[in-house]
């Protein structure tokens, strides 16, 4: 049972893992970003989303944005010291911790994501594919979501709706673009050792077909 979600927004940033200090986006949405987007609308431990196809409806265009960013993260050890009564500075000094970083982001994106889900062993007896399917369809139609989905980073929110039907009209009919190796998803099966997986992305007629792609790590 497949669903089709149309998602669009002004900007997107699907960061290439090899260029993440000064971030550069992939040309198109990664399967893991698409999964995250759908999970923002509906997810349940009893199901797992699989991305089948990503249709690229708008031409791929980039824009550069440089921002002042904080380079530090919250230090958990400092928090623990303070929690147990110690003295540690508990803030980030923005003038000392700031870095300017550029990002090459995508502009004016629109995708149709085709996905299906399978049940996991955490699905209870009361759960069924029909039930999950109905919930996700209702949410897509009424605009309900767990949190607002986004394209790669939270500052690039995504609007979404159930795709109306028919064949999505892509920006690249009759063209084949080799996008090189792209992140497929993270493999979380071993929580101690989360590993990225990759695939060779071919954009055929504006469609990224993920159903039979070879996933390498």
């Amino acid at each position, binding site marked *: 049972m497949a669903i089709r979600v149309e998602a669009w927004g002004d900007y997107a940033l699907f960061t290439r893992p090899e260029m993440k200090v000064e971030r550069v986006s992939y040309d198109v949405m990664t399967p893991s970003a698409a999964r995250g987007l759908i999970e923002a609308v509906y997810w349940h431990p009893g199901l797992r989303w699989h991305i089948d196809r990503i249709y690229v409806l708008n031409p791929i265009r980039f824009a550069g944005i440089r921002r002042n960013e904080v380079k530090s993260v*919250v230090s*958990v050890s400092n928090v623990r010291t303070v929690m147990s009564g110690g*003295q540690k500075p508990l803030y980030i000094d923005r003038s000392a911790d700031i870095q300017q970083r550029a990002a090459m982001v995508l502009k004016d994106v629109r995708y149709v994501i085709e996905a299906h889900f399978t049940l996991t062993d955490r699905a209870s007896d009361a759960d069924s594919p029909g039930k999950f399917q109905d919930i996700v369809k209702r949410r897509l139609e009424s*605009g309900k979501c767990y*949190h607002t989905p986004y394209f790669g980073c939270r500052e690039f*929110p995504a609007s979404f709706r159930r795709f109306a039907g028919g064949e999505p009209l892509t920006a690249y009919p009759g063209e084949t673009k080799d996008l090189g190796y792209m992140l497929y998803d993270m493999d979380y099966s071993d929580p101690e050792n989360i590993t990225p997986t990759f695939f060779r992305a071919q954009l055929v007629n504006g469609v990224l077909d993920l159903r039979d792609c070879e996933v390498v790590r």
Partner: protein
Amino acid sequence: MAKPIKNRYDFVILFDVENGNPNGDPDAGNVPRFDPETNYGIVTDVCLKRKIRDYVETVKEDAPGYRIYIKSGVPLNRSDAEAYAYLGLDSKSVKERKKDDPTLDIQVRDFMCENFYDIRTFGAVMTTFMKDSLNCGQVRGPVQLGFARSIEPIYPQEVTITRLAVTTEEDAATKNNTMGYKYIVPYALYRAEGYVSANLARKTTGFGEEDLELLWDAIVNMFENDRSAGRGKMAVRQLIIFKHASELGNAPSYKLFDTVTVTRKDPVSPLPARSYRDYDVEIDREAVPEGVEVIVRG
């Protein structure tokens, strides 16, 4: 911890700038940010979030529970006693818990969320210690902001200024004054859109009703305490809030945002807009779906 909010919200902020630079672009010598393809002005999400943090810091003055994590370096070290008050712990019990409490990462997260308004609102990234299996990871806050974009293309203007005083002795010997530049936007109205997820408030950070009120206040007043030579006259003109009747929401955000239209009062005017009065802001209340309440502030 206060009760988390129960409703999802979407909001539109309309703010304007007069003879100022709302957000300089470090890539372009501090020219106001704009999209070179369309000339529409841009203000980044982080710029607006900074203003919200600054407002809360000014108003709350580091009151318990309303500290700001990312601030401009005023050391503060009086957090210890408060920390206990929040958790009802003493140092011994924390140490004991550290050994065999698998929820310590959650405690660390909750501690940060309860103490820091900005973490409770926008989230934070915490370091992870794999060797301790302490994984606080990423805290996603309920409030999410996009980039603001101007209603019409902007035309940044370079203003050359002179100063009579000179900085160094050497300069004083050879010249009387120096030239400087600043960039201004003569006038522009910007629109930003944001989202508040009640789910993330309930399940992660405990962002409550009071916090939400403070957020709206902070947005409406975000430029009031942020005057500077560079920014000129900036003001939030309107904050339009869409309150959903439920936690997950009652309508798609884009449909709600589409009900707010901003147009030039005189569309055929040959002159560019120079004040807020040149614009009409309309909210098509008829088109707002059932289960969504419109609240206008500012």
